[in-house]
């Protein structure tokens, strides 16, 4: 792990290089435990600042036999994390001894990686959601870019924290069936779609149980825009403050021009 970290702090003529800002970013990821396991959802969009540049990014991946990892934030850093985990799982499989890394172990490993990078002032700019099931035990945790980590029955990153978690706090139950969990998830995703400008209407929902991992194909949610206020957008324009301001400014310009 030391060798991999050294590559990141490349020294150029101007000094050391380190992550200062994210460039291509993914928005919220939501995860929740349900009766048989854990379900996680994210949209497939990658924003480049305010531009929705990439519309088919997979932001949820399976890790080993027992875990799912979802990420928001810098996509290239997410890909780097996947490379670290790939190597980790490979070595774990090579032991071939009946032991395997479960979601708890992967979560803790990621926490160490994120925290160590943060200490070097070169963070991996991601919020990670790690969910999984091992031997019937469900696990769901989160790690932020500064290494803050915790476990909970439902987690969300970014805007999801503000928009989705209040819904989950009110409506989540330990014994949700898969269908109920998907419905609850779609309710949260819909709110995010309406209110988060970096969200797109193309989602993947992933589920993990003791049997294995399933990641759905991308699909869209039905949205409703038939509100009466949207019918005639400029209906209230005349006499509105905006038009008045334009008239004001225009009149002042004419008066000033008269003086020249």
């Amino acid at each position, binding site marked *: 792990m030391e060798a991999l970290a050294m590559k990141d702090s490349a020294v150029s003529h101007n000094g050391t290089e380190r992550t200062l800002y994210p460039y291509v970013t993914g928005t919220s990821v939501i995860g929740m435990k349900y009766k048989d396991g854990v379900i996680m959802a994210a949209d497939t969009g990658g924003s480049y600042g305010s531009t929705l540049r990439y519309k088919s990014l997979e932001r949820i991946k399976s890790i080993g036999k027992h875990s799912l990892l979802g990420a928001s934030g810098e996509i290239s850093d997410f890909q780097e994390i996947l490379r670290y985990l790939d190597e980790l799982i490979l070595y774990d499989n090579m032991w071939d*001894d009946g032991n395997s890394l479960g979601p708890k172990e992967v979560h803790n*490993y990621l926490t160490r990686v994120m925290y160590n990078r943060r200490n070097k002032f070169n963070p991996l700019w991601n919020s990670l959601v790690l969910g999984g099931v091992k031997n019937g035990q469900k696990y769901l945790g989160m790690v932020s870019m500064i290494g803050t980590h915790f476990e909970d029955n439902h987690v969300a990153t970014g805007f999801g924290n503000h928009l989705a978690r209040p819904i989950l706090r009110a409506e989540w139950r330990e014994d949700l069936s898969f269908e109920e969990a998907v419905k609850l998830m779609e309710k949260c995703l819909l709110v995010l779609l309406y209110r988060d400008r970096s969200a797109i209407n193309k989602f993947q929902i992933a589920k993990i149980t003791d049997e294995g991992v399933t990641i759905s194909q991308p699909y869209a949610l039905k949205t409703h825009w038939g509100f009466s206020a949207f019918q005639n957008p400029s209906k209230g324009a005349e006499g509105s403050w905006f038009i008045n301001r334009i008239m004001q400014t225009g009149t002042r310009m004419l008066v000033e021009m008269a003086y020249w």
Partner: protein
Amino acid sequence: MFRNQYDTDVTTWSPAGRLFQVEYAMEAVKQGAAAVGLRSTSHVVLATVNKAASDLSSHQRKVFKIDDHIGVAIAGLTADGRVLSRYLRNECINHAFVYESPLPVSRLVVRLADKAQVCTQRSWKRPFGVGLLVAGLDETGAHLYYNCPSGNYFEYQAFAIGSRSQAAKTFLERRFESFNSYSRDELIKDALFAIKETLQGEKLTSSICTVAIVGSGEPFHMIDQKTLQEMIDAMEIKEDSAADEAPMQDEDKSTEAAPMDI
């Protein structure tokens, strides 16, 4: 084993394909005081004979707790054993720090074996002169391993190492098939019996042996002297009342005052 011209360096092969220095290291294990290990499906017990350098000194420590779920008993050069225990403790705690979970026993013994192997292939090193019985519990069950100075390791249902360990091994060979179904207390009792076999007449008391156990819901710990002595006494009472075939037990009866003699 006799001196020959191929036994000076650990990196010298004999024409018969043997590394004598490594074999001599294994002899050192046979000189140490006995240690036995037994395993059931849920518990592993380690027991050792504590030899004191003299009546004035304290006993040598031969059992080390490596982590909550792993412990070792050593036979041979105790200094080497202490150093290896420190290495094992380090490996366990590093794994727990990164992964927040206990290091699987099989992976720990492989690391230990690889460390021992290095010393059999460097001209400026010598093999470790200590054999370790590693007892541990992980998600794949209860395990007992024996790590050799040669870098080999094997998993066992039960094993004994050190001086007069053959007597213990013979005892264990008769009984091992039923160990998997043993209860915790039966396992400790058989460990004490096995240790007794290596004593050859000397009386078994809690001051000359150490017993440690690890099991599901029970972190690795040594059994305190008082409880141990009670178990030994209970063992002895059973012996006196039941008819026993082993010749050793008859000798014990003769040292205590027989009811007729008073």
